[in-house]
């Protein structure tokens, strides 16, 4: 936009409608490129700052080409060099910045002449304003004008420009003001080493001048004094010197004028009054306005004192600022503010005057102030004060301005700032639904001390004035107000009303969530279940807590129940969906989502959303915002997972191109975890419905009629839909086992049984009868593997492998068979010979998945082969009645470990429980383990260990290595299903951060302009990474070994650096069963595998909602530390002596030593560890003056182990 000024602006600034500008000469990005020099004779119509005379143009261009610095110099030259001035009065000429600047310099010198003043006012200053920013070199002339000129308008402009020069908010040093772009003056001045004027040069002079003016107590001078003070507040607040000066001035003025002895009440903004008091009021206004712009110092009692005085000032703007200052101060110290306000809050006090003040924002500030104080814990022992403020707040509910009324409602609901506190919200809903409001004309002063905290206002007002107005239930009042607002035609009002309903829904959800515990009066529980919630009932029940007037009983019909009121409100809200503004509709939908209660049917909501989404005018950001709302809603009420997933599905099918697959996936995942055992199937179904959409071919036009639900009408959304399908497929593969609660390591069926039912039909039948969830997921994935686009098929195959590995029989066999078919299927006969020798050709033919599937099949082959072998061996032993020898057991165990390693390359399995050799091997493996005292979790070359994934599990597994069964099954399974951490992509993932940001109400950062959203957003989601790693398979084959995992945030890289540091100490494998035989394709897979696993597990759970992730172990520690740890711990137990002697000498010196950090130490490299003095560490080892130490808990950087200098740690 910066370059958009050109033609029109310049055209108009010349004041000559007919003058046209050659567009070729329009300035482009003048802020970055220095304008070429200004010459004396101007060409008509050429724009500024590119005013170039034809005659000199060539030369100028050459100059620019040869030396930009001199060009930049030249740009400023006209300003200072006093070249012959342009004829300013000729209005039809374009006016360059340089010309204007020059005029100012000249006219400043002759400012006493009327003509000069006139020219300044009508010509120079207004036109100068059109430029984006003002050159600091103008400051001397402006100051001269300030001193000498008498004309008010000129002076007003002078203050304006001085403030512009002072203000410092831009990266360029000057805050831009729109209009014609200007260069970075400071940079230009810096280039011009001889005499450039920078802001730094002029700011002190300006400040000095303004300061002296602001201190001028002359009565006639006082308007200028106000402006000078105002301009001063623009000075950069980073300079403490200037700041203290301004404080001094402001408090100096207030000292003189703020004291209330001559205060007159009731003249707010009114004309008249004696001159002295008006001047006084003007000064009060100026001082408080300035104070409001300065940083607040809550510790300084002067602020509080002056602000409290300000509440009774005559100037309404001053009152507003005082209230704003007070409400800000009250957030940190409500007690002090309440005490300072003292009598002001009492009836007839200054705060009550504010109620009638014609300044909306003042009343808004009052509402916030009253809310803060009436909720303050520090005032628990002063219920009278709290109720006084509460009373004022409730009076604001009747305010004629929606802004004020809504603010008051939000305050009642417990929403003050962006910090969401569930208790506060729940209490807000409680207040809203319980309180009876009696609004006196003049509120009573009388308070009783015995009031409960929850309902100060109703009691406050009950003593008196019942004749004036009938008491009303608060909620009724609020509902009426909202309903009438929804009938407004103004979009902002509609939007705001919908937002209030949205917040109301949040508070309601919080009340549901907290419900029983927080609201301690048991009698209220019933009333939270909606429909039985009438006021009559309510009254009887709560009579002990809140004394109510019996005449309140206007709740005679069903309409007066909360449910009835809500229903009628929601009816109005729903009709608002007809508003033509999408933002209003979005807010309405959000409100509906929040107001949706778990036990109501959501058909209506669904149909509203469904029909809404068909509207193409929805911007993507808004839709994602609603998705995030679903997420937030889920967190508030986990029980709604299925409902929310259904809604999310509508988004996925209707607007695949506009929503963010990451956010959607996150939603799926959290819902799946939160859905509980019963909901898991439904939750998974909701996800997989996405897969039932035939994925469109990329780039091809999609026929919307062919599938009634999908609308991927353009290539972009077709691509997005496909991405979505990929995400869904991956999600399914990762989580199907979790959802189905089917795990190989829990399967009761011995492999033998399954192997016997090789008849495919029977197998499918058996499978689906045993576990319909898993069978359904399988079927869907199989279809995807056949019919999807190439990318989808790849992921489907991967997902199937994951499921095969994790599931028991007959699923594994079923998948195995399917994969086998897939590999062979469609293979062209002419290529049949080649495929043996050349993997690439396989990939290019048939289903295209041959080269991808073969390693997966190989693993399964090996597993089955080993199982066969095991069964054979067992029979042999049985037949011969032979015990298993140690040698045989060792061999078996090695096979077991090797297979575990292989399996771990494809997906994560709990190592302690997973039995690649089948359930029958469990006993033998156990025997061997016990005999050799091997921890079940101690895998030497486990890729999961290498990449740090396993830490999640091992952290808790290690105390009980002997009886791994004590592990919470659900937990293990959740981890296995990759659900252990909530962060699907880790906390740093874009989706996660967006969710959190949303939940915490952040959001000032600039919006993306829509188009960037779906296509160019860099996403590190799994499927991208994984797909990439697959695509790179060929090159990875060469260097996979060395590069390991090369993704930038990979833990693996840390691991490699540490292990290389400890190269000499890298423990040899106990069983030397590295999967070295597996060949290069495997290592490629390893790279791919670790790539994808890391982002899945790397993050720490961020949120605290109720799911298994609660018990999640601390975030990963350094993998190599893990490696050590897994040795150390089992050895610490008894029986470690039975270890082989070779191992013994490796470990005997490894008894843990402890130490304390003596000093802070800052890590200088990846392998070093930050230390804080006093921190306790476990010393693992010493190398060349360095300790390898382990912390008890991860440091701020998340690291747990690393190197520190020996001298920094004292051994204990």
């Amino acid at each position, binding site marked *: 936009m910066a370059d*958009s000024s050109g033609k029109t602006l310049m055209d108009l600034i010349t004041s000559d409608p007919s003058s046209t500008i050659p567009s070729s000469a329009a300035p482009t990005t003048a802020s970055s490129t220095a304008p070429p020099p200004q010459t004396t004779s101007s060409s008509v119509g050429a724009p500024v700052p590119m005013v170039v005379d034809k005659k000199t143009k060539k030369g100028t261009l050459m100059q620019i080409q040869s030396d930009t610095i001199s060009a930049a110099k030249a740009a400023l030259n006209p300003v200072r060099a006093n070249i012959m001035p342009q004829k300013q009065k000729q209005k039809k000429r374009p006016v360059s910045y340089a010309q204007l600047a020059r005029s100012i310099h000249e006219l400043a010198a002759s400012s006493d002449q009327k003509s000069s003043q006139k020219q300044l006012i009508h010509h120079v200053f207004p036109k100068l304003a059109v430029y984006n920013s003002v050159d600091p070199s103008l400051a001397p002339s402006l100051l001269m004008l300030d001193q000498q000129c008498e004309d008010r308008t000129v002076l*007003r402009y002078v203050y304006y420009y001085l403030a512009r020069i002072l203000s410092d908010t831009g990266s360029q040093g000057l805050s831009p003001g729109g209009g014609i772009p200007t260069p970075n003056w400071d940079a230009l001045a810096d280039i011009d080493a001889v005499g450039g004027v920078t802001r730094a040069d002029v700011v002190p002079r300006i400040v000095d001048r303004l300061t002296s003016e602001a201190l001028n107590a002359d009565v006639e001078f006082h*308007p200028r004094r106000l402006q000078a003070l105002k301009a001063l507040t623009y000075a950069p607040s980073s300079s403490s010197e200037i700041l203290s000066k301004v404080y001094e001035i402001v408090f100096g003025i207030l000292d003189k004028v703020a004291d209330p002895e001559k205060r007159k009440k009731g003249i707010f903004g009114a004309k008249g009054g004696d001159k002295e008091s008006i001047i006084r009021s003007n000064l009060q206004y100026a001082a408080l306005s300035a104070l409001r712009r300065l940083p607040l110092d809550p510790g300084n009692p002067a602020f509080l004192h002056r602000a409290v005085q300000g509440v009774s000032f005559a100037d309404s703007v001053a009152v507003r600022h005082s209230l704003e200052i007070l409400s800000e101060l009250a957030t940190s110290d409500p007690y002090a503010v309440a005490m300072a306000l003292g009598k002001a809050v009492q009836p007839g006090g200054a705060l009550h005057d504010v109620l009638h003040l014609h*300044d909306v924002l003042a009343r808004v500030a009052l509402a916030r102030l009253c809310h803060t104080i009436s909720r303050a814990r520090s005032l628990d022992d002063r219920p009278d004060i709290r109720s006084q403020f509460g009373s004022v707040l409730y009076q604001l509910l009747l305010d004629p301005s929606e802004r004020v009324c809504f603010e008051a409602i939000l305050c009642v609901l417990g929403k003050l700032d962006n910090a969401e506190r569930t208790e506060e919200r729940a209490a807000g809903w409680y207040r809203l639904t319980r309180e009876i409001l009696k609004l006196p004309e003049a509120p009573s002063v009388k308070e009783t001390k015995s009031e409960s905290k929850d309902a100060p206002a109703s009691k406050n007002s009950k003593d008196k004035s019942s004749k004036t107005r009938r008491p009303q239930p608060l909620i009724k009042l609020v509902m009426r107000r909202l309903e009438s607002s929804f009938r407004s035609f103004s979009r*902002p009002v509609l*939007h705001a009303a919908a937002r209030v309903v949205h917040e109301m829904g949040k508070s309601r959800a919080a009340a549901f969530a907290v419900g029983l515990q927080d609201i301690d009066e048991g009698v209220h529980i019933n009333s939270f279940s909606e429909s039985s919630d009438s006021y009559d009932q309510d009254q009887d029940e709560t009579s002990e807590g809140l004394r109510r007037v019996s005449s309140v009983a206007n709740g005679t019909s069903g309409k007066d129940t909360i449910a009835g009121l809500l229903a009628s409100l929601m009816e109005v809200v729903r009709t608002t969906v007809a508003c033509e503004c999408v933002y209003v509709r979005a807010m309405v939908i959000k409100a509906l989502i929040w107001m949706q209660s778990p036990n109501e049917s959501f058909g209506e909501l669904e149909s509203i959303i469904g029909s809404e989404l068909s509207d193409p005018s929805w911007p993507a950001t808004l839709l994602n915002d609603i998705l995030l709302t679903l997420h937030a809603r889920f967190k508030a009420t986990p029980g709604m997972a299925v409902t929310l997933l259904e809604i999310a599905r509508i988004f996925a099918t209707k607007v695949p191109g506009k929503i963010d697959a990451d956010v959607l996936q996150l939603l799926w995942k959290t819902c799946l975890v939160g859905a509980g055992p019963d909901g898991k199937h439904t939750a998974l179904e909701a996800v997989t419905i996405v897969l039932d959409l035939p994925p469109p071919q990329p780039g091809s036009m999609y026929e919307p009629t062919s599938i009634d639900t999908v609308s991927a009408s353009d290539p972009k959304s077709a691509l997005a839909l496909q991405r979505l399908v990929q995400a869904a497929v991956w999600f399914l593969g990762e989580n199907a086992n979790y959802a189905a609660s089917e795990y190989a390591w829990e399967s009761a069926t011995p492999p033998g049984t399954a192997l016997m039912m090789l008849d495919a039909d029977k197998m499918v039948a058996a499978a689906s009868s045993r576990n319909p969830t898993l069978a359904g997921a399988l079927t869907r994935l199989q279809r995807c593997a056949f019919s999807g686009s190439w990318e989808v098929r790849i992921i489907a195959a991967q997902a199937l492998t994951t499921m095969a590995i994790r599931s028991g029989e007959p699923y594994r066999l079923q998948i195995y068979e399917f994969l086998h078919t897939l590999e062979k299927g469609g293979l062209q006969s002419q290529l049949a010979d080649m495929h043996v020798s050349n993997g690439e050709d396989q990939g290019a033919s048939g289903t295209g998945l041959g080269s991808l599937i073969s390693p997966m099949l190989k693993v399964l082959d090996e597993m089955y082969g080993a199982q066969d072998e095991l069964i054979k061996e067992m029979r042999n032993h049985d037949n011969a009645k032979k015990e298993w020898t140690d040698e045989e057991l060792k061999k078996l165990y090695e096979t077991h470990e090797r297979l575990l390693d292989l399996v771990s390359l494809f997906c994560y399995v709990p190592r302690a429980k997973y039995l690649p050799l089948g359930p029958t091997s469990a006993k033998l493996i156990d025997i061997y383990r016990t005999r050799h005292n091997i921890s079940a979790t101690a895998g030497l070359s486990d890729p999961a260990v290498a990449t740090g994934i396993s830490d999640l599990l091992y952290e808790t597994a290690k105390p009980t290595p002997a009886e791994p069964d004590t592990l919470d099954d659900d937990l293990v399974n959740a981890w296995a299903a990759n659900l252990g951490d909530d962060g699907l992509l880790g906390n740093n993932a874009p989706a996660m951060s967006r969710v959190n940001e949303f939940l915490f109400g952040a959001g*000032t950062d600039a919006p993306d*302009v829509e188009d960037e959203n779906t296509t160019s957003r860099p996403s590190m989601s799994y499927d991208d990474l994984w797909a990439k790693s697959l695509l790179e398979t060929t090159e990875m084959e060469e260097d996979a070994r060395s590069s390991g995992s090369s993704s930038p945030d990979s833990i693996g890289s840390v691991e490699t650096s540490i292990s290389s540091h400890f190269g000499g100490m890298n423990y040899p494998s106990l069983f030397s069963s590295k999967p070295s035989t597996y060949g290069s394709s495997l290592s490629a897979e390893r790279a791919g595998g670790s790539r994808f696993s890391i982002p899945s597990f790397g993050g720490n759970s961020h949120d605290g909602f109720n799911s298994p992730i609660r018990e999640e172990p601390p975030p990963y520690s350094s993998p190599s530390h893990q490696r050590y740890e897994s040795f150390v711990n089992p050895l610490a137990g008894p029986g470690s002596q039975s270890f082989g002697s070779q191992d013994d000498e490796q470990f005997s010196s490894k008894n843990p030593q402890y130490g304390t950090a003596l000093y802070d130490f800052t890590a200088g490299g990846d392998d070093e560890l930050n230390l804080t003095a006093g921190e306790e560490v476990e010393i693992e080892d010493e190398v060349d003056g360095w300790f390898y130490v382990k912390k008890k808990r991860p440091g701020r950087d998340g690291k747990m182990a690393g190197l520190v200098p020996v001298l920094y740690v004292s051994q204990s």
Partner: protein
Amino acid sequence: MLLAVLMANSEGNILVERFNGVPAEERLHWRSFLVKLGADNLKGVKNEELLVASHKSVYIVYTVLGDVSIFVVGKDEYDELALSEAISVITSAIKDVCGKVPTERLFLDKYGKICLCLDEIVWKGLLENTDKDRIKRLIRLKPPTEF
């Protein structure tokens, strides 16, 4: 915080902008977002009819006045309704200065005065003066309340 006041012509060129508390790197985004918003929605809208939008917890109220579209962006206490208040003060000040609904040419002719008005209405990200007469007095360097 009133994050931004922005005025653009019908082609989307920025005539006036005042950002408060918006990092420099985000301003460009805001500009293009707002201009796009205007281009999408302001066709055929009556003068001074208020439109609303939001992005995260930031509110936007915008309107059209003659050839000029006006956007105000705010957050926290400056929600849609407070912004409506601010924008109506701004439009009425512009109308006062221009004498009628401004064309782009008229707007630029009165550019200086409009800047002064804006300076009195929005001061460092907070709404300051809302009263028409008071603004008029202040831009002529007269005291806010006259005797």
